[in-house]
Structure formats: C-alpha cells, structure tokens
C-alpha cells in the first residue's frame, strides 16, 4: 500500500473517515467502464415493479409452445421457475446434478421465510421489510430489486399455503410467525426447523405436476459444463450425463441459471457436498460479469469442527438465538470446566453486553465476528483444534426454565436431535457449542432488474445472482428470494426477452456449439490423462484452508495478496499433478469433482482480488484496515458505494472491474448500529 492523498474525497460530511491509501488491488485488475441497470423504471419505488410488469411485452400462448427454456438447478429458485414457466406453456428443460430435483440444497434451510404480511400488526409492511433488508445488507444492494422482493413476499406465502406447505399454525388455525436476527418485527413463517424442506417439496411437486403435463422435461444426474453463446446470446448448454458420461448438447431460446451459491470454495461450509460454482463460472468465462464475489456470509451458529476428517459443517438454525443465550467464560481458566459449574457472575454474555438493544439477535456477520474475537482472546470452549478452542456456548437453560422442556422440544426438537447425534452431547442438559461457518454467498453473477446477466438470454436467479442481499443477508431471506425470483419475478421479465423469439434455429454443427463441446471434452480428457499424484479432494481442502485463513471472517491487504499467490501456485500444481482415476463413459465422482475444483480455484482468486479492492468493511466483508476504534466495521460510502462487477478477460489476463454505482432514493445510507 502506498500512502497517498485520496483524491476522491469531496468534503461531503457523510463520509465516514478520511482514507489515506491508494488502490490496494492495483496490478491485479484492469479498470473498465461503469455498468448500470437499464431495466428498472424511473419513478416512485413502490410503483416500479407494477410499471415493469406492464411494460414487459407479452408472449402469445400459441407462441409459448415454440419457445425452449433451459433451467439449471432445481432448488427453490429453479424448481419454482420450472413449474411456473411450464404452467404458462413454455417448453422447459430442467437440469440437476442430484438424482432427484427434490434434493437441491434449499432443502436444508431450517429457520423460515420472511414475508411482510403484518399478521402480528407489529408495524410491518413491504417498506419496512425493504428497509430492514437494505440496512441488513449494509447498503450494498440495489434498492429497486430489494423493494420488489419485499413487495412480492406476501404472494409467496399465499402460493405455498395453497400448495399444501404445512407451516406452523396457532390454535385458531392461522399462521404463526417468529422473529429472526437483525429485525424487531415477527415476520418469519416457518415449518418447525425444516422450512426449506417443506417449501422445496412444494415447488418440487408443482414442477413434477408439469413434468406429468409434458411442459417440463427433467434431466437428473446431469451437470452443466459449458454455456453455448451464439452471436452474443445464450442459446444452450453442454451437459454431461453423470451416469453414462455422455456429453450432450441442449439448445434453447433462453438459459436460466438457478445453480445456487459457491460457499464450497472454502471446502468446509454448510453447503451440500455437490454444491458448486461450475455453471455460473462457465457462464462468467463466456461473458457474464461476476458481482461482489467476496461477499460471503459466515453463519454464527454452526457445530464446531472436530478434526481433519471433517467433510462439511452443519448449521444450527439461527432461530435458536431467539431463545438461546450466547456466552463464554469471563476467565480463560474456566474454559475447560463443565459449563454448568460456572456461576452466572463468571459468564460473559458478550452479545447482550456489547449490543444491549439487539442482544443475541444481532445480524449474522456481527455475531460471527464477535465469536471469533472471544475465541481469539483465548476464551473459546470445547476441544482444542490446532491449539485453539473454537467454540462458544449457546445456552437454553433459562429458556427451558421459562417455556419448559416441552416448549423447547416443540420449537426446536429436530435441531436438538441433530446436535446430539453429531456431537454425542445432550443439549437439553448441557449448553450447545457453536462456531461460525461459511453458509451463503451474497455475491454472484451480475443481473439487471430483469434478472438478466450481461449475456443476453442468460438469466440468473436465487443465490446464483448477486442482487438482493448486498454485503450481508438477513435470516429467512434466502428462501424468500429464491421463491420470489422463480415464482413471481422471472416469469414476468423473461417474457420481455422471449417476445422477440423464437430465435433462429441453430444446428449442433454451428462453430460456437462445436467449440463449447470440444472445450468440455478436452477438459475431461485432460483430467483423466494427467496421471498425477494428488487426489482432487486434497487440492480442494488446501484451497479451502487458504480461503478460510485469508478471505474468511477478517481480511487484510497482506493476507489477500498472499492468498492470491498461494492459489496461483496451487492452481498450476493442480493442472499438472491431479490424479483422477476411472473412465469418462461411466459414473465417475472424482472426475465430477475435478471439474468443480478447477473452477473453484479460479473463483477463489477472483474473490481475493475483489476483497483486496474493497478496502472497507461492509456486511460479511470485514477488512482489518477498516474498523472503528472499538473494532466495529467501518464502511466508506464515499469510495465503495458500488457493485464490483468483474469481467473475465481471458486466461492469464487481469479481470476487468466495472462499477455500478448504488443510488438510494427511498432510503438514507446510515452506518449500521445494533447497540
């Protein structure tokens, strides 16, 4: 870093602190032209979506049958879109790598789904949900998109109830709500601790109904390995049948990626084993910009790591923070004691102490970093892993006193069981131990208000896009966004694009198709013929360690530069020395993983460059160089109130940074405070 006067300061009193540095990421990227969303209408924020829906052109029902739509991914965003577009009469082809669409990782979401129904009459409204989401995202999301999300949230609940989703209900038969981190109203609908499962099964069933109706064709155990772009437009995908190994070409008028997030770049995360970035990354390499890739959500309440065999981490729903109290011993010498023997006065309920008004319900990024801080101080609990105790207590004893064991069982039974099964400890008797883990990524492919990427005809929904959560996502908002995109947003915006179709038929012999296919075949051949010495998993684990160490909860300029070097070295070694056994024409799980890890390496490098560029702390992105005197995150709105949209410029070339300025008309940017 060079100490030079910052020339961007304008004397505006709203900026947070004078910055006295240059461009941290200089030499790692090429500056590009600004980018902006051209689809959101002008005018009052609460009228924009109505206006856009009206202005988006219609497709005659007779023409819909002639239009082919490919949807990659069958989680909430993908299955809901497949069902809805199938119902509308389009030809939909749906792809998933699992053996059934119902297995997509949305199924693992526990806590709930937000909606501005205001059934509790506690002051909720679409505007308040919008406000909370933008504030929770630390003013790094696009306001038009977020307002729309809040607006359609109520439709989601109606739709799901009609499908038979068994939400929790009160004695009068009406829907129950709970409160969730980061907000002060009760707007979260839930189905015990399995809300994601119930919503996904609803969307899955709606999609299977369309399979039966012949409007949706499903391809399970198929993995998208390349995007086909013809004359600048997305026109199909190359997929591998994971059972036979056949490389298939699927052509269409439009492609939708609903392929989820890339948290598995960290190797250990709460994502499913198969969750990967390949579909999104192949699209990125074909021209789709990747936005804010460094925005990662580290979830505060996961079960701590036990050893080097660990294959994944398990989340305990954030809803537990409603009734559980988080603490560590005040004295380091108490850390090995049985927690039940530590008297009240020797416990540090640190969230309640530091953030008296939100207490245990502070947003996820704040809760996570606070846990890291107390463990770094040496006050963590549980077994030592690599010389540090990385765990804090989540204690239900006062809630059990208040609500009785039955009351707690009814609310959290399956979570308590899961905890007991994994740890071998009974959380009704001794406090749970938790620690933060990578859980969700706010970054993703850049989309406009129509959810269209920078490649015309390529739409991106759900966690795979970047648009709604800014630098931090609030609890119970991922399910809301996935279903909002798939049921209520994409089906309207995609028709404006399809109104120009059906597009000219293309042949499989088209050079762009042949090129995409060859690229896939060459990669497969390369992996199988490298004959190196290291397994794919060993590379993935090493990449994950680098990312967690240097691009995890706290990031610094030196650490990120080091990480970039380490990743580049690892990537070179991977391509020369990876060992993939088996054949191309059969089920080959090592081969599947090799392709995914190759893409994670490239993504990991870009995440570090993005984090290096953003010399501010916002939401899930905490830069050690940008904090207040008492260690709180410090944003620099004067310099970084933009979306960083990265363009792939070719292998060995520097990525190009395009900035989308974030302009707020309906909300005032403030420094978050949960004290």
């Amino acid at each position, binding site marked *: 870093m060079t100490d030079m006067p910052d020339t961007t300061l304008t004397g505006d009193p709203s900026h947070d602190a004078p910055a006295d540095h240059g461009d941290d990421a200089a030499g790692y990227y090429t500056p590009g032209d600004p980018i902006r969303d051209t689809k959101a209408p002008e005018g009052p924020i609460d009228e924009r979506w109505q206006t856009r829906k009206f202005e988006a052109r219609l497709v005659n029902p007779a023409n819909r049958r002639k239009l082919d739509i490919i949807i990659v991914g069958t989680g909430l965003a993908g299955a809901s879109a497949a069902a809805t577009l199938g119902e509308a009469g389009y030809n939909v082809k749906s792809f998933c790598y699992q053996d059934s669409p119902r*297995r997509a990782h949305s199924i693992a979401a526990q806590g709930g789904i937000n909606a501005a129904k205001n059934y509790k009459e506690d002051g909720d409204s679409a505007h308040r949900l919008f406000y909370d989401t933008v504030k929770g995202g630390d003013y790094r999301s696009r306001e038009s998109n977020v307002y729309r999300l809040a607006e359609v949230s109520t439709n989601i609940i109606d739709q799901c109830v009609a499908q038979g989703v068994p939400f929790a209900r009160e004695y009068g038969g009406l829907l129950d709500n709970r409160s969730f981190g980061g907000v002060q109203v009760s707007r979260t609908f839930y189905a015990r601790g399995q809300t994601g499962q119930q919503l996904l099964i609803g969307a899955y069933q709606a999609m299977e109904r369309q399979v039966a109706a012949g409007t949706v064709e499903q391809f399970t155990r198929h993995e998208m390995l390349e995007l086909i772009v013809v004359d600048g437009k997305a026109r199909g995908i190359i997929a591998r049948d994971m059972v036979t190994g056949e490389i298939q070409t699927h052509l269409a008028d439009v492609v939708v990626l609903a392929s989820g997030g890339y948290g598995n770049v960290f190797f250990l995360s709460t994502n499913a084993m198969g969750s990967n970035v390949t579909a999104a990354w192949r699209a990125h390499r074909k021209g789709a910009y990747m936005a804010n890739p460094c925005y990662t959500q580290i979830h505060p309440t996961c079960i701590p790591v036990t050893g080097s065999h660990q294959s994944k981490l398990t989340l305990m729903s954030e809803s537990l923070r409603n009734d559980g109290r988080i603490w560590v011993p005040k004295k380091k010498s108490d850390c090995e004691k049985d927690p039940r023997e530590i008297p009240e006065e020797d416990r540090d309920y640190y969230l309640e102490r530091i953030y008296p008004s939100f207490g245990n319900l502070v947003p996820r990024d704040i809760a996570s970093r606070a846990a890291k801080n107390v463990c770094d101080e040496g006050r963590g609990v549980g077994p030592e892993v690599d010389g540090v105790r990385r765990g804090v207590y989540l204690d239900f004893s006062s809630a059990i006193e208040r609500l009785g064991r039955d009351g707690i069982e009814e609310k959290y039974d399956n979570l308590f069981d899961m905890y007991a099964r*994994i740890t071998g400890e009974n959380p009704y008797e001794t406090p749970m131990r938790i620690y933060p883990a990578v859980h969700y990524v706010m970054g993703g492919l850049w989309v406009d208000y129509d959810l269209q990427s920078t490649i015309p005809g390529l739409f991106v929904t759900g966690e795979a896009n970047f648009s709604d959560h800014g630098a931090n996502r609030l609890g119970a908002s991922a399910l809301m966004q996935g279903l909002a995109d798939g049921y209520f947003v994409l089906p309207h915006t995609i028709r404006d694009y399809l109104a120009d179709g059906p597009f000219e038929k293309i042949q499989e012999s088209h050079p762009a198709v042949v090129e995409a296919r060859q690229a896939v075949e060459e990669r497969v051949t390369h992996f199988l013929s490298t004959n190196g010495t290291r397994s794919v998993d060993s590379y993935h684990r090493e990449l994950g360690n680098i990312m967690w160490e240097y691009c995890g909860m706290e990031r610094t300029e030196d650490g990120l530069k080091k990480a970039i070097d380490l990743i580049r070295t690892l990537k070179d070694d991977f391509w020369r020395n990876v060992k993939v056994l088996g054949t191309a024409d059969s089920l080959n799980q090592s081969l599947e993983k090799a392709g995914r890890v190759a893409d994670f390496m490239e993504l990991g490098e870009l995440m570090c460059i993005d984090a290096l560029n953003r010399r501010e702390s916002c939401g899930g992105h905490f830069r050690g160089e940008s904090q207040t005197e008492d260690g709180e995150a410090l944003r620099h709105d004067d310099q970084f109130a933009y979306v960083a949209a990265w363009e792939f410029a070719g292998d060995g070339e520097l990525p190009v940074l395009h900035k989308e300025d974030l302009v707020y008309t309906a909300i005032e940017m403030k420094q978050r405070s949960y004290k």
Partner: protein
Amino acid sequence: MKVTLKIWRQPDAASKGAMHTYELDGVSSDMSFLEMLDVLNEDLIAKGEDPVAFDSDCREGICGMCGLMINGQAHGPEVTTTCQLHMRSFKDGDEIVIEPWRSDAFPVIKDLVVDRSAFDRIIQAGGYISVNTGSAPEAHSVPVPRDDAIRAFNVATCIGCGACVAACPNGSASLFMGAKITHLGELPQGQPERDTRVVGMVAQHDAEGFGGCTNIGECTAACPKEIPLDVISRLNWDLHAALRHGR
C-alpha cells in the same frame, strides 16, 4: 479404531457385482460414516484403485440422497440417515457389511449408487395440489386446525430416501406413498384431488415394480424420519374411498 469393511462393488448396471473386503485403520469415533468412506476412498485413490461410488449431498440428514444397507439394516443401526450415523456407533475390530438399497425398482447404477427415479414418477402421478402460480387465495382465507397442520407436517418430513423400500421384504413403497397421501389429505387444500391422487399414485407404484404392503412394519422401523405405519392405513382408506366413488 480399526474396522473391516465388506463393500458391494459393481462397475455398472450391466455388470455383475461382488463383495470386496477392505481394512481401514485410524478411524475416529467423531467421524460420520460417510467421512469414514471418504477416508477409505482417499486411500484407494492413493493406491490407484477405483474409489467406492456412493451418493450423498447435504450430509445433514435432510436431502435424502444418501442411503446404504449397513450390516443388513437400511441406514445402519441408529434411527437416522446414513450421513448422520457416526462411527461412535461402532467399535474397534468391527466388521461392517455395506450394500446398496435392495429393490428391483431401484436398479444399481454403480457400487452403492442406485436409481430412485421411480419415486419422482410416483409424485408425478398425483403427489401434488394443482394450483398454478399466482392463483392462490390469501393465506389466511382458509384456517387449518393446528393439530391437522402438525399431523400433515409430521408426515411431510419424508425425505424420499427409499429406506422403507430397501427394508421391506416385499420391496413396497407404501410408506413413501402413504406419507404423501396423508400430508396432502390432512389439509383442506388437498381435498379436491384426494381421490385421483391416491388412485394415480398407487397405479404408478405398481407399474414401477414395487411390491404390495404385507403389514410387516420394517419400513417404519427403518425410516430415519420415523414416519408412522398408520399412513399406510390412511392410504388404504383413501384408496377404498376413491374406488367407492368410482374414480
């Protein structure tokens, strides 16, 4: 600890399979069962042997992707999914026999991986409520008695793993079907299609080659989500009612 693994290896659907024996040392009791197999696979790769193929995805007991016959029991000795089974359920020196789900309707793809697409086709035959996006009434327009909602939820927790089929001596998927029939049949929203749903699903179930229910109850004992046996009574009740109604 050290364990002896006897694992079903089968290169693909067309080939014959056989049991192979592997010795694995250094197993920690904190490992999940699948992490133990990960360790075995890393060993096999290092030796240049094809790793064992098995399905798993969420590894938190909810997606239903994993499922192994472990010492003859679907998902092994505990009431949980294979991914949530931990090695603390075994002891040093144990011999562990690992097979794929056993059922004609779930053909083996490779090693321990089977094809469960028949379950999707059963759902396609009626396991849904027909409501197009956007046509739903306001959620509070139809109150649902709390007990009915709880009962619907309890059986809607089925993860579609197929353990019920693998455990059934007759290879029946009645517990899987019964769970869906009961989930949707408990709710007012599910009533209009109650008859056609059960008739369609049962016809598809039989066409897929699943056997009939013979009231053994192994299915519910093996179910990691503890779906109760009486969902099959409900299935039969609904089927009789539908036939009486002439569907």
